């Protein structure tokens, strides 16, 4: 009923406007006025509107600045973010000058020089000096913007020093998983063909390869059996489908056997240093903690399609591209607790969100990030190190329960010496 009323009002409004225009049209026809002859009154009215609009435009702009500029992102919680914020500020100053200068001229002239029959427009086809001036002036402004911008860009994207701690962020539709390197400090090799329920990230270890091969062998045998059993009575397309599947499983097994050979050779050559030997103590966990004031390399990997790891509070963003790894380097500078104080909001959490369209639940692909002091972080790592990838069945992996995460961090705040006791996730 309400909607019907609204639609009715809208329809009436449109009819009213068009009828007014009709009336105007008919009266002007009677007066012999033609559409292309803009009357002095119309010229004056639109000219006045230009000035009024300009004032309203600026007022709207200042109102938005006044009402919202302190509701945007808080102070940057990363080292490079502070640089970016300063740079952004410098750019805004330059752009605001340009904005007000050009708009004021535009609307002032548009409102001032409206048509008058007795006036003649100034004949002014060109002026080389002026044109040169406003080619060079923007170029100078831009030089400042380019040089400062590229300096920051270079620092942000520079390769991290060797030995910088690595944490893997793994994205899939529609959630995030973290992988910590475990006691050896090195992330193990991965392969997407090894992914199954027990190995959601496809970590390569001798055991995971063997388990996956066994799993595929079972599948292969079962498929071969169905083909054999159904050879006489199954419809042709169902058989073809099964045969395709059989082919695919066999191909995958071949590739995994290749992988196993590669793994064995690499381990033989590099011993403990091999990335194939580094996986079994990795920790796969749906919690994301980082220490404050330490540079970290976030290694980004996607299981299915392109996602983007967006950390607005840290002014950091990088895509996750299937088939190729990407890296995001950053140094958090403010712990979650301190940020809660800054924002006077005890509920506050840093957040990681997906910022590349990835499907129906793209809008809710998020994970909290906890930044904590070195001691608390080390205690948390020590605790999760007790449940490495190999030796801890999937069912007993720490739960991805958001409330537990925040609870434990709240308690860390209160008594950091008792961290080890409270950080143990629920479910144990």
């Amino acid at each position, binding site marked *: 009923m309400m*909607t019907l009323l609204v639609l009715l009002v809208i329809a009436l*409004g*449109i009819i009213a*406007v*068009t009828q007014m225009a009709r009336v105007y049209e008919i009266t002007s*026809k009677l007066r012999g006025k*033609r*559409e*292309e002859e*803009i009357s002095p009154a119309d010229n004056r009215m*639109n*000219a006045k*509107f230009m000035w009024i609009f300009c004032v309203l435009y600026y007022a709207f702009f200042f109102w938005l600045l006044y009402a919202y*500029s302190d509701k*945007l992102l808080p102070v940057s919680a990363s080292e490079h973010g502070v640089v970016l914020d300063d*740079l*952004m500020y410098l*750019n805004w100053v330059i*752009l605001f000058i340009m904005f007000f200068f*050009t708009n004021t001229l*535009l609307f002032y*002239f548009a409102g001032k*020089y*409206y048509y*008058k029959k007795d006036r003649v*427009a*100034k*004949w*002014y*086809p060109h*002026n080389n000096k*002026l044109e040169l001036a406003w*080619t060079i002036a*923007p170029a100078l402004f831009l030089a400042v*913007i380019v040089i400062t911008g590229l300096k920051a*860009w270079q620092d942000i*994207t520079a390769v991290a020093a060797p030995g910088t701690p690595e944490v893997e962020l793994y994205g899939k539709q529609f959630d995030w998983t973290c992988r910590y390197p475990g006691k050896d400090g090195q992330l193990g090799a991965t392969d997407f*063909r090894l992914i199954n329920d027990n190995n959601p990230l*496809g970590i390569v270890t001798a055991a995971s390869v063997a388990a996956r091969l066994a799993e595929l062998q079972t599948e292969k045998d079962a498929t071969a059996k169905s083909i054999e059993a159904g050879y006489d009575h199954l419809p042709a397309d169902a058989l073809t489908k099964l045969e395709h599947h059989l082919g695919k499983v066999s191909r995958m097994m071949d590739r995994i056997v290749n992988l196993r050979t590669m793994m064995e050779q690499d381990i033989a050559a590099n011993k403990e240093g091999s990335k194939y030997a580094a996986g079994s103590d990795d920790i796969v966990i749906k919690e994301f903690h980082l220490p404050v004031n330490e540079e970290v390399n976030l290694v980004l990997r996607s*299981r*299915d*399609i*392109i996602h983007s790891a967006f950390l*607005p509070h840290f*002014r950091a*963003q990088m*895509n996750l*591209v*299937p*088939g190729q790894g*990407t890296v995001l380097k950053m140094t958090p500078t403010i712990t979650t607790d301190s940020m809660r104080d800054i924002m006077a909001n005890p*509920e*506050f959490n840093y*957040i990681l969100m*997906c910022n590349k*369209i*990835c*499907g129906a639940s*793209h*809008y809710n692909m998020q994970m909290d990030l906890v930044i904590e002091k070195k001691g608390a972080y080390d205690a948390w790592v020590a605790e999760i190190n007790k449940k490495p990838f190999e030796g801890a069945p999937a069912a007993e992996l720490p739960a991805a329960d958001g409330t537990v995460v925040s609870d434990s961090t709240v308690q860390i705040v209160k008594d950091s010496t008792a961290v080890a006791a409270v950080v143990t996730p629920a479910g144990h």
Partner: protein
Amino acid sequence: MGAHAHAAHADHGAAHHEHHHHEESFISKYVFSQDHKMISKQFLVTAIIMAVVAVMMSIFFRLQLAWPGEGFAITNFFLGDKWAPNGVLDSNMYLGLVTIHGTIMVFFVLTGGLSGTFANLLIPFQVGARDMASGFLNMLSYWFFLVSSVLMIASLFVEGGPASAGWTIYPPLSALPQAIPGSGTGMTLWLCSMAVFIVSALLGGLNYVVTVLNMRTKGMKMTRMPLTVWALLITAVLGILSFPVLLSAALLLLMDRGLGTSFYLSEIHIGGEALDNMGGSPILFQHLFWFLGHPEVYIVLLPALGITSEIIATNARKPIFGYRAMIGSILAIGFLSFIVWGHHMFVTGMNPFLGSVFVVTTLLIAIPSAVKVFNYITTLWKGNIVMTPAMLFSIGLVATFIAGGLTGIILADSALDIPVHDTYFVVAHFHIVMGMSAIFGMFAGIYHWFPRMYGKMMNTRMGYVHFWVTFICAFGVFFPMHFIGLAGAPRRYYDYTAFPMFDNVIDLNVVVTLFAITGALAQVIFIYNFFYSVFRGPAAVQNPWRSNTLEWTSPVKHMHGNWPGKIPEVYRWPYDYSKPGKAEDFVPQNVPHTDGEEESHG
């Protein structure tokens, strides 16, 4: 060359003349027409219909963004129970609407509609040609456009819904139906539609270039061409060079989808199984896509800038300031637009050094753009401005070009791009600088050349209401989006309520939606004015705006060959407005110089 072309022309014209006496059937006149004026009108009306569809889509998703999870009868009425149960927009359909809104606006309205309408109408008229170089190819260009429009609309009705991977259709999302239902039949139709669209754009573009280069009338030197023609020429060149790349990108994607190739796919585990594809790169698609995608921005924008250059000069009764600088900036923008595509890919993991190169090339574009803005402003200075609706929209274009252009400087700066990449800041930026500027240029063109197209006048008062409401709403919609973006809100999110951090700014979404609805309703006034005037508007005079260009020397009633006698000869540039020593404040291009009069140029 000019004289040569002219001689050829005169023959052609004579031949046409005899031809002209045949009474044309309805089919050959209105349907399979090879006349540039009719084809231009066909493009325009098709684009208006497509625009209505795209605007309505935007209202549906704006309602969801302002009042997430609430049901709206209108949404349910148009989308049905499948996609809007109880009037609440489905999250897959949300992405579908966002995707098709972008696709239709960028390609069908602002490329097909804008270039198709005005290149067809103005190029033969303003260079003094009897028609396009090839009327037949020109007709095909429209029919391919129509077929692609129909395919795109048809994709809305298939099982699984329309393509919903964003208008940039990045694979693997767009390649794998397992990832999103819209990547099934909907995406196949999207790709087929775009392939047909590209054929249309190429046929049109080649015709425009050939016509401008070979069929100018006697005396129409390149440096005497109106800026509209310059802009449309460079636009056509950009299209010819960049659309084939999109076509190849689309074909490779079709192969990945249907034939099991791996151009864009590698190491993917989805829907519980590992795919066979190895060795491809999703980033390759982005390079190919944006190699078109960035020039596309200028394919959309340049015609609008050309149109407003012409309209501002005419209605300010002043020569355009810095005519040669304007041509130079069009050429510079056209050239630079081909070497900036990487600025869409700063956070894809692309080599940072390559990123730096794209920063420099992108920011260089700001220079010719600034020159254009200053030249527009100087043209207004001490002018004698006639406030026609077309002039208002042209001034509006300068305002949106400034507001949107400036934020582009932030986005072009790779370091500053990181925190705002893919947020509402980007949405605000490109809607203002590309969307609003181009659509304002298109409106300006329609109001200005309506008498030329239909021989009737549009209602000026309705034009005023249309302009002011649209202008205010344009800023009301897109200005607050900058703030939503600076708060870190990503684009293409169905709902923001899961993030407490956005609670502070998300009330702005209501403001935006209210302005969007008002702005959309203002377009009803325009559509009414347009169609009413086509049939019932007062008859137009030959040169209503007292303009200099050649199209106003042709009779009001359309005829094959455009001019009843000889094609007018051109003696001067098109901007002799308020020239000292002249009785009138305009001197058309076909008027010879008087004794001792100096030829003027910018």
